[in-house]
């Protein structure tokens, strides 16, 4: 009996093994998530930044402008999953459609903020928040923080680096620092209080990168601070002088001789007038019948040569710090300024708003607020950042 039983058990076990091996074929790995990107480095890409990275355009932001961000385009080139904190249409706030009349997407009845789209993602890859300076990537609660409604809507009670860490980042892009100097430029008044000192900038910027590396980031690309004096929101005083000479301004809008070019004895080529001041305040008042005068020598709202020098020095200092950080950490570095300078020299960035064409008031490279890059510019920046990444890591993001 024992022999018979042993044979029976042996046969049973044999059949069981055959069955188990056959059934193993029921496992189906093809049901797993989509294939990871070609490069392990880009498995989890996270973007930190401010309004540019967030996809803010024409003084507004919504799901459509968010998808136009260079960060989204870069992720597509990486072939990696990239989630944005999508805002409902028409936006929060809705982008301008005509900056001269103030019309926005959705019309006059549109809500000021249409809130976040649902269902929300579990994690976000684009943690950038409009208005964020370097400090804001680290803290939403600091006395100097620039936290705003979008800070909560995008980050939901965490900081940029905290949300970035949740993604278990393998690669990061950081484009921060513009708002450490931009506020001063747009206000037309530059003081030590509204421009972050290089020492403080260095400390905060290093902390952001340290925390990203601690979260697992193996590489990244650091984008230099844009030369804020190159944005078309800022027009030379001489451009206003020329406009008056050509009769493009109403009779109630006077432009002082101080705004004339140097050849005519003025300082107009060395000064910049913020659009918000020149058009938003002076022109609006003049059109209302109030006589106004733009004075490039004495008007505190006009950026003087000294102030422009201060801004330029700050930007140069920031970018030296950023480039040094990139070199030290072995990350890629990209500065957008040479390209934007070329575009300005080529006339693609106008010196003075094209009031005859309000839907392209600031040309093809900038959106309708004259500060934030257009979708065309985002495409250009994404390509150049991809080149910088390829050059550093030997990848092949660029076509």
């Amino acid at each position, binding site marked *: 009996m024992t022999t018979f039983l042993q044979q029976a*058990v042996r046969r049973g076990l044999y*059949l069981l093994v055959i069955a188990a091996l056959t059934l193993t074929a029921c*496992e189906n790995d093809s049901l797993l998530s989509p294939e990871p990107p070609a490069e392990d480095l880009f498995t989890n890409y996270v973007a930190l930044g401010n309004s540019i990275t967030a996809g803010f355009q024409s003084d507004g932001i919504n799901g459509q402008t968010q998808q136009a961000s260079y960060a989204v385009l870069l992720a597509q080139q990486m072939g990696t999953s990239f989630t944005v904190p999508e805002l409902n249409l028409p936006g929060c706030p809705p982008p301008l459609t005509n900056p001269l009349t103030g019309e926005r997407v959705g019309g006059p009845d549109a809500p000021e903020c249409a809130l976040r789209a*649902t269902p929300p993602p579990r994690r976000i890859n684009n943690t950038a928040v409009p208005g964020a300076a370097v400090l804001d990537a680290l803290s939403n609660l600091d006395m100097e923080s620039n*936290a*705003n409604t979008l*800070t909560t809507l995008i980050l939901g*009670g965490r900081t940029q680096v905290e949300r970035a860490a949740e993604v278990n980042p393998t690669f990061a892009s950081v484009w921060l620092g513009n708002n450490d100097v931009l506020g001063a430029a747009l206000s037309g008044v530059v003081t030590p209080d509204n421009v972050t000192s290089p020492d403080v900038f260095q400390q905060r910027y290093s902390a952001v990168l340290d925390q990203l590396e601690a979260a697992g980031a193996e590489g990244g690309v650091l984008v230099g601070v844009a030369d804020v004096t190159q944005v078309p929101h800022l027009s030379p005083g001489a451009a206003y002088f020329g406009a008056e000479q050509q009769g493009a301004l109403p009779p109630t809008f006077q432009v002082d001789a101080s705004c004339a070019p140097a050849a005519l004895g003025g300082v107009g080529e060395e000064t910049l007038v913020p659009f918000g001041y020149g058009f938003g305040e002076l022109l609006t008042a003049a059109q209302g019948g109030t006589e106004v005068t733009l004075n490039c020598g004495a008007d505190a709202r006009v950026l003087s040569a000294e102030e422009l020098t201060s801004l330029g020095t700050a930007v140069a200092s920031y970018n030296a710090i950023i480039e040094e950080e990139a070199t030290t950490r072995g990350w890629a570095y990209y500065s957008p300024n040479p390209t934007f300078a070329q575009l300005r020299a080529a006339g693609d960035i106008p010196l003075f708003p094209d009031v005859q064409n309000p839907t392209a008031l600031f040309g093809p490279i900038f959106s309708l607020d004259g500060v934030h890059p257009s979708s065309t510019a985002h495409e250009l920046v994404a390509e150049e950042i991809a080149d910088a990444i390829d050059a550093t890591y030997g990848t092949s993001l660029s076509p």
Partner: protein
Amino acid sequence: MKQSYTPSAQPQRTRLLASLMLVLSFCFLTANDAQAQGFGIFEQGTCASARGGAAAANPCEDGSSVYFNPAGLAGTSGWTFSGGVSNIIQVGDYTADDTGESTDVDSPVSVVPHVYAAYGATDRLGLGFGVYVPFGLNTRWPTDFRGALLGYDNNLQSIYIQPSVAYQLTDRIKVGGGLVVSVSSVELNQRLDLAQQLAEPDQGVTFAQLGIPRNTPFAEATLDADPAVSIGGNFGIQAALTDRISVGARFTTPIKMEYDGEASFRQVATDLVLPAGNPLGAPAGTPLDGVLQQSFTEGPLVTQGIETEITMPAQFVAGLSVQATERLNLLLDYQWTGWSTLEDVPLNFEVSTDDAIVLNYNNSHNIRAGAEFDIDEVWTVRGGYVYNRPASPDETVTPLAPESERNRPTLGLGVKPFAGVELNLAYQFVNQNDRRGRTRGADPGEQVTTDLNDGLYRIDAHVLATTLTVRF
């Protein structure tokens, strides 16, 4: 060579009776902890389990015909008592699409008891009694698992208590049936997602719309229902077509269980802090947990009553038995289970807004093939194979019951060491196909579709069963 069998002595029988009582005591002691893999449990007897559960046309002689086909009680001679357990060991994991991270299922070993008694009152009249657990569920996941928002520790068990009677109508036809008293309890534990809660109820604005990401747990909920009792029936017929071929069928009625219980909620810290300019208008630095705390003391998350109901589905089984040789019996069963009656599990709260667990189950189908070979009068080997389709459609594969198609080979051994005593052992490997599923519920206004699926469940199980049977 066939071994001769010698009846055992009376003292041995006494010792074995004591052993049987010990086993039965163990079963009852663990009944409160009885847990089961999957919603339907077919392992109601080790002998039948070893055959792949094929028993409708020829139930095992251990009293389990109370469940598998009450008609089989007719023709029983003397008393038969049996008791045993099926131990279900669930293994597997869930792999998330977006991160590739896997989380192992953390279910404990489920111990499912069964106890039967059968008595042949006359040559034609048989009586029986059984206590078994045909429906049960126990799935446990780590509390930090993303699917904890749908349930991380869920228990459901329906114990069927069934007195039965069977009668042999003719030499070839038997019928039987029994009243089923179902005693059922359910406990659901899950985390609640802040993103899905209303931040501004008057305007219908959710926290998700204010930037709170999905899967931000802020509370743990326990829905604990008191045991519910309801009545059903289990009926069967068995016919011998020839001396070697018989057929049988069983029908178990659906049983609707209505539960009353208590829902309690505990706050889970989010550690979120509101910055300046937040849409709630709170001062910068306000901890969100402090804002939410009121919900647990005087809001919708106070401890409150809850009502729910679950219908244990109908089952129909038809089977064929062929005595191929003197020693070899071949069996084949088909089972239909009416799961389509279970569209959702309503959760009617005393204070909070009513909710429901959407299931949308489909009727399921099983094919079971089994074989039993008597090596001699002491030893019997059994084997079987089960294939079953899942009840859950593609859109409701969740941590609660992440089921899929299953292929289940079985193997068993029976031994009769003494006269009137039989010990059965069985092993079953539950090979479940990988299946995509989800870890979250639908948002308000969102449809439950496969678009919600966000990962892959890979779950298998091992079942070890043993039953001791004594006949007088």
